[in-house]
């Protein structure tokens, strides 16, 4: 069995605001959610959306996941529960680190006040699978449920896992996504210590002056269901998830394989999975972290996988507007890509000014651009790569 998978709900909480619409509106208009070198979800007050109990029983990454998931499920028309047997609905939510804010807070309690002061909520809050478990609990989803852990590819892996589940009939629907809340003292110091984050505090993917990523936080969520079922119940189809490819570099703990081989194989696998050639892709939502290594090797990978088509395509990075959302990035970027295709727009890579000889493709520097339709549905790929050498690529198509 391989069913065509429709996307019927989208949700996001990002530095550009609460809601998937504010994400795509802001990015397309060239707005940045980055302030003082960080992409915080400043406008996000969990108690506006969650009960006091839900709020205190969830680390911030889970709170973000709950709000993004609710938006996606509401849009899919699932506000009062799933339209199918709940035992056949999956929930897969990835994260890079999980509840690191809780870990830090509880470690401080341990050091200052002893073991007795550590909260009984510490484990349920900090565990990396908490977001998936709590979202499933909140909405009564009783099928497969777990988190994916692959650093900055976790959100894309979660979506890929959900795609297979629905394609193959292991589930009648699946909510997928990613969540991260890693703007904490330890995580900031750790990423800084390894030289991954930007000293200038500016996210400018593919620009010659790029000097590292800007940390961001947030969550993205998508509802996946078979096209047939979605149409039968009259749900609005927002787009299609048509392909998925995942590979490993098996090269280095943090550095991408310089030739882009692992990433290129992920792109090729995803295209083959969708049954598409490079000429049938209209837009690339790049991983584009603003680190010197990623952006050069991703450019290489695109050339390897797409050939001459790589230099004809608009390629842009959402991280230029919101920073790097780590394990949430893949899900937030897939959410944004669905909306790009729906609106027929390639939003810009903000702040791009200086060409780097290793990054010589079209990064949509001048501002949002219309995508040419060529009389068929628009299609895009969304790239995600993670420390550890994880590569995950998704193929998306307009409804």
């Amino acid at each position, binding site marked *: 069995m391989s069913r065509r998978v429709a996307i019927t709900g989208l949700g996001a909480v990002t530095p550009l605001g609460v809601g998937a619409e504010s994400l795509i509106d802001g990015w397309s208009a060239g707005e940045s959610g980055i302030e003082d070198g960080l992409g915080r979800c400043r406008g996000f007050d969990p108690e506006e959306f969650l*009960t*006091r*109990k*839900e709020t*205190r*029983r969830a680390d911030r990454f889970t709170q973000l996941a709950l709000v993004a998931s609710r938006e996606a499920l509401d849009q899919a028309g699932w506000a009062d529960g799933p339209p199918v047997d709940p035992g056949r609905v999956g929930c897969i939510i990835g994260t890079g680190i999980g509840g690191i804010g809780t870990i830090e807070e509880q470690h401080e309690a341990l050091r200052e006040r002893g073991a*007795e*002061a550590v*909260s*009984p*909520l510490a484990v*349920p809050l900090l565990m990396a699978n908490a977001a998936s478990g709590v979202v499933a609990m909140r909405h009564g989803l009783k099928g497969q449920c777990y988190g994916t852990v692959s650093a900055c590819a976790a959100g894309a892996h979660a979506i890929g896992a959900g795609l297979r589940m629905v394609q193959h009939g292991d589930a009648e629907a699946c909510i997928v996504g990613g969540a991260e809340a890693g703007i904490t003292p330890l995580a900031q110091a750790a990423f800084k210590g390894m030289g991954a984050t930007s000293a200038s505090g500016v996210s400018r993917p593919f620009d010659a002056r790029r000097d590292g990523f800007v940390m961001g936080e947030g969550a993205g969520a998508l509802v996946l269901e078979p096209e047939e079922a979605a149409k039968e119940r009259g749900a609005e189809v927002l787009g299609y998830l048509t392909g998925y490819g995942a590979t490993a570099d098996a090269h280095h703990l943090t550095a991408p394989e310089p030739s882009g081989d692992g990433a290129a194989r992920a792109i090729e696998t995803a295209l083959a999975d969708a049954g598409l050639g490079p000429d049938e892709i209209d837009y690339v939502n790049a991983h584009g972290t603003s680190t010197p290594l990623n952006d050069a090797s991703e450019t290489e990978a695109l050339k390897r996988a797409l050939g001459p088509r790589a230099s004809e395509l608009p390629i842009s990075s959402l991280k230029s507007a919101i920073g790097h959302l780590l394990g949430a990035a893949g899900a937030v970027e897939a959410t944004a890509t669905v909306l790009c295709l729906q609106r027929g727009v390639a939003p810009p890579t903000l702040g791009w000014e200086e060409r780097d000889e290793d990054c010589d493709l079209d990064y949509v520097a001048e501002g949002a651009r219309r995508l040419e339709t060529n009389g068929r549905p628009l299609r895009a790929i969304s790239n995600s790569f993670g420390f550890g050498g994880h590569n995950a690529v998704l193929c998306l198509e307009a409804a």
Partner: protein
Amino acid sequence: MTTATKDQIEERMTEALESFGADRDDISRDAKWESIDVDSLDLVELAQIVEEEYGVRMKEEDMKQMPTVGSAIDFVVERTDK
């Protein structure tokens, strides 16, 4: 540790339960834990607060003998009186 009055202890424990998510209007001496959505994790937190602030230790087996808010308050008040 300063000695707290019965009213102060009752107020502090009510405040703690409220912070766990219970509705203040529903919190009464007769309220059972389930009725105010207080579960075993909340009770462990309540025990931590009581121990830290009043030096009274509520063990798991003690808590099994406290089906209501009032029974927990009485347990603490009795042990701070001594």
